């Protein structure tokens, strides 16, 4: 059993690394694909936990993540990325600067959120561990992605990353009832469809005089 938990730990770390990879990436299509991979890793964590704890709900959750998050969400996103060269590549970002800012933001957020509160929450699946750090890292990474990018699609990916972090958090703390989890998945899927509709009309976001103040 310890081996399974160690593997889960490593996959959780890998999920966080995919978050940083999306942040540093300039190619929108590649970012969307990485999101799909991130969802697959979350599904794997769910399957492994299901196996370790002999709980069938984890398997259902894993299947839902694969169908709705990994395939459908990625499909809608990739499908709506125009073939236009300027769109697939976001040039106006300084990767080094952004990653440094990202690290500062995440370290401060995690320090505030984790060390004063979440550290007291004992997870049912991983007692006496600090595994909750990984979903929290991913969550704040998603938030930073939304605020640091101007492209609609990059911001959508930040939002999906946040949602992925919530699945991971739920899996590690205590999964909420499946009916609610399914409703959340469907809600997010519809939101992604709306996002992608708007992304065609408004691919980049700049400050507007009419919306100041």
């Amino acid at each position: 059993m310890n081996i399974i938990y160690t593997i889960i730990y490593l996959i959780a770390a890998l999920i966080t690394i995919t978050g940083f990879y999306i942040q540093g990436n300039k190619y929108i299509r590649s970012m969307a694909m990485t999101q799909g991979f991130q969802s697959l890793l979350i599904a794997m964590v769910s399957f492994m936990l299901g196996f370790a704890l002999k709980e069938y709900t984890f398997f259902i959750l894993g299947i839902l993540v694969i169908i709705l998050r990994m395939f459908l969400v990625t499909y809608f996103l990739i499908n709506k990325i125009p073939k236009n060269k300027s769109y697939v590549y976001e040039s106006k970002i300084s990767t080094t600067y952004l990653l440094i800012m990202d690290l500062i933001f995440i370290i401060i957020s995690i320090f505030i959120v984790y060390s004063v509160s979440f550290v007291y929450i004992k997870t049912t699946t991983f007692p006496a561990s600090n595994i909750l750090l990984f979903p929290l890292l991913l969550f704040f990474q998603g938030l930073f992605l939304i605020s640091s990018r101007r492209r609609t699609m990059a911001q959508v990916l930040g939002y999906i990353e946040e949602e992925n972090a919530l699945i991971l958090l739920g899996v590690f703390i205590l999964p909420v009832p499946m009916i609610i989890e399914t409703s959340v998945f469907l809600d997010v899927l519809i939101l992604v469809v709306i996002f992608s509709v708007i992304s065609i009309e408004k691919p980049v976001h700049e400050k507007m005089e009419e919306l100041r103040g």
Partner: protein
Amino acid sequence: MIVNILILIIPLIASIFYKNIKNSSAIASIIELFLLVFLYFNETGPGFFFVDNISIIFILMVDSIYLLSLLYSRKYVHSIKNRGISENFYYLLMNFFYVSMVFALMVNNYGFMWVGIETTTISSALLLITEKSDTSLEATWRYIIIVSAGVTFAFISVILIYYSFHTLTVTTIIYSGVKDTVAVRLAVGIALVGFGTKVGVFPVHTWLPDAHSEAPSPVSAMFSGVLLPVALYVLYRIYEIFPLRELFVWAGTISVLFAAIFLGYQRNYKRMFAYSTMENMNIALIGLSTFTYFGMIGSLLLLLSHSFGKAGAFYSSGNIYKMSDTKNIADIGGLINNRMSSVSLLLSSFAVTGTPPYGTFFGEFLILYSVFQIHFYAQFIIIVLSLFLAFVSINFNVSKMIFRGKSDYSENSVSTLIPLIAAIISIAVGVVFLVVYNEIL
């Protein structure tokens, strides 16, 4: 149970008559009002749905503003030249928007409440681009991304509630008594940030002025009058689990202060009313957070009266925009020549700034009294000063629009009766309260 289901299903049935959806939706909203009366006399005990006196008031608000907005939309939406969505699709989305709000109010489960709140974002997002422009697209985007990201926070709160109680049933948790653990405190605190995004708590309020100013006026009225109160209701239900009184009252007070400051330099009258909504919602949040009898009564009265007053203000704003083609306060003047529009704007403006004898005045009075009662003197002083600042800012701008200069706007193409009715109902709420419940004062 059957009545609850009917309330959710009837607007959806009305949507089936897609070609005639304008009329079928209006009929559905009237039937909903009758069903609500039935629901009031046959309150739903705890089950999948839970409706008590508090939720009844919220459902009444939602249904009334939904009906008024549908009626006002008939002329308003029809006359939009550059429509982002078709007229029938607009009514379809309005129906879904209404159902998602009522679902969040009636359901007896924190998880489904979250789903209801998220669904309000889905159903209302495309309503914002009814009057399509580059600005409205940007406002829509900001609305979806900020609110969705914020509400995601709230789901952490739901996870923590489930972790603490092993159930998400509202009544089971509330009736189980206070449980003081880090997880419960964290759940309530995170809910303030998460659902607070939709309520308009500072500093996560930034979507609010953009969405309100760019949405078509009937949708702005729905946002301001009922969507924010629905989010506040959900936030209150979580607050009941473990009242973090100091945190919530301070959050509300700071938000009211900033709303009053923002109100001081507004150039766009719709943005001005949006910040006024932020101010009123946070006053109501303070009232509910005091967790006292007077605070509760004051908040409900404020929210009820505000919903009609603010709907009137946004309908009047819609009329002014149609007549003048500008949202800039400095470019509007001489509205006094348009009697109906100026009267409805003035009455609505009085309503949202808490002028006696409006319900908002008595509501604010009771909330201030409850803040004083729990010895939060610093907050009391800040709130009073902020209310005064907001009152002066809004009424000064509205007076300029009505009494300064001359105009030759025509009221022929706008519906002037609905804004006036909304503003009068707001007064009636206050007068009825004064007559029936005067012993409270």
